[in-house]
């Protein structure tokens, strides 16, 4: 058995270490929730452990080579190009900082920009329940935890909510089909991971709303009414007051 420097094992160790370090720092700095839904956190912690095991295995292979094992990294077809996807991933991970999806993707009309004014696709039935206490309130303040629940209930039991006061914070989102007096006040809802994040919110209406640009963060207070938009009746806020938010939250997502 000849001992020699195993280049593939070295590259693999480097890649594994990179992944472990990246995911660990994201978790420590509480930024992981901007990539995936928090319910995946235990699984991701487990995968850090598994990656560490693989890292140890690869690291031990750098200077030694099991000559008789056919599947050994050094014995066959490991071309350098196979590492390219991993290196691209690491480059993207470390060269830029964590951000929330912003209006650029909205401007670009990418696939991710489908506005949901009534329902999140495939929202599980459980999350639509246990909000009956909200129905009886006359003034509702929407926050990170109740955002999706309240809006879903407003759509399902529209007549119960008409005339109620609401306060909602989010960013301005416009579609070509909206009137100048209309804007949607939305948050990105993250169902699984940032790939499925979709703008979700309430249509707001006031003659003065034309002056707010897309992606501006606003806190809107108003009364709920029901109105037709694109053929379906949805809850609409008749706006009574608007405040601009100077420092939007770092994590701009809401989680169903």
């Amino acid at each position, binding site marked *: 058995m000849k001992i020699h420097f195993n280049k593939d094992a070295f590259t693999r160790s480097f890649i594994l270490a990179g992944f472990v370090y990246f995911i660990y720092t994201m978790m420590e700095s509480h930024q992981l929730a901007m990539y995936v839904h928090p319910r995946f956190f235990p699984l991701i912690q487990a995968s850090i452990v598994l990656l560490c095991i693989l890292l140890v295995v690869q690291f031990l292979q750098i200077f030694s080579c099991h000559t008789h094992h056919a599947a050994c990294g050094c014995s066959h077809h490991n071309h350098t190009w196979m590492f390219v996807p991993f290196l691209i991933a690491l480059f993207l991970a470390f060269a830029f900082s964590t951000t929330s999806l912003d209006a650029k993707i909205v401007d670009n009309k*990418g696939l991710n920009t489908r506005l949901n004014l009534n329902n999140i696709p495939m929202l599980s039935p459980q999350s639509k329940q246990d909000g009956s206490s909200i129905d009886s309130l006359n003034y509702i303040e929407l926050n990170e935890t109740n955002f999706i629940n309240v809006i879903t209930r407003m759509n399902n039991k529209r007549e119960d909510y008409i005339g109620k006061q609401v306060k909602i914070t989010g960013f301005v989102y416009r579609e070509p089909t909206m009137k100048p007096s209309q804007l949607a006040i939305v948050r990105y809802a993250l*169902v699984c*991971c940032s790939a499925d994040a979709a703008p979700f919110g309430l249509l707001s209406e006031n003659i003065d709303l034309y002056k707010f640009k897309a992606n501006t963060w606003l806190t809107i207070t108003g009364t709920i009414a029901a109105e037709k938009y694109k053929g379906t009746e949805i809850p609409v806020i008749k706006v009574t007051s608007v405040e601009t938010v100077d420092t939007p939250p770092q994590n701009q997502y809401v989680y169903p």
Partner: protein
Amino acid sequence: MNDYQSLATVSFYDLFSIFFSNIENFRMIFLGIVIEALPFILIGVFVSAVINNFVSEDFIRRLLPKNKLAGIIAACFVGVFFPICECGIVPITGRLIKKGLPVPTAIALMLAAPVINPVVAFSTASAFNGSWIIAGMRLSLAFVITILISLVIGRLFSNKHIAMTKQSDTADLIAETDNEEDITIARKLSNTLVDSCNEFFDMGKYLLTGALLSTFVQTFVPYNSISSIGQDPLSSVIAMMAFAFGLSVCSTSDAFIASSFASTFTFGSILSFMVLGPMLDMKNMIMFFKVFSPRLIVTLVVLAVFFCGVTGIVMNYLLLGGMVL
């Protein structure tokens, strides 16, 4: 000439600037897919390596009944107890046929095990926000299609020699675990870890490439240009099947990619993607050539595409007809 050149430069510059103004969104979406798929690909890789080293083909073969149809049905459920992803299953299938397993039974095992297993059921349900209905549909459709394909192939390829490739290429696939009895537990454990590593990098490159392509489409292809295809009951199915074939993502994590298309593509096309993907993809096809004759491969591809396509299209028309899930 000059005009043409400047036009080309402008459009290239535009693409460049669009790419860089969106790089942060691109990064967030890409890493989101990767981080979420990571636990599942790791589980798949470890389980597959354990099976590779600790479960003998003899053991699996003894569990299968002798009756043809019963054998096929039983083979469909091997994945429930031994969740093997599609990359691990092809060499095992070749090995089993060599050891005397009937070709249709082996095909059933190869097609079903990567879909009908707990890891895929769990990851599909997770990807679709805990929807066991979608996971159930995926698994049961895969079950029905696998049985149909296996029966047709059983009819067409009764002779084992027609089904198998002529050269004994399978030998090098089997060579790895020849003297199983001689290997100590410690040796098996260390082999398992080394196999896990190799498979992680082998699978990882397909997963990352798939995630990159998927992110690219999501970030830069304007929604309006694709929404017409994505919502068409027929062409959406064809597009998603082509996508499944080209993507070659492991069955344990492809549901996450499928779910990221759920809002833009028809439900039938998403189902076709998730049923066809584990049965047939680019990286699988390469391995097929080591085990089966070209005629069998062509038959397999045609049958799989046909059945998955019809399923997706029928599903779309049922949904269009007002059937609500």
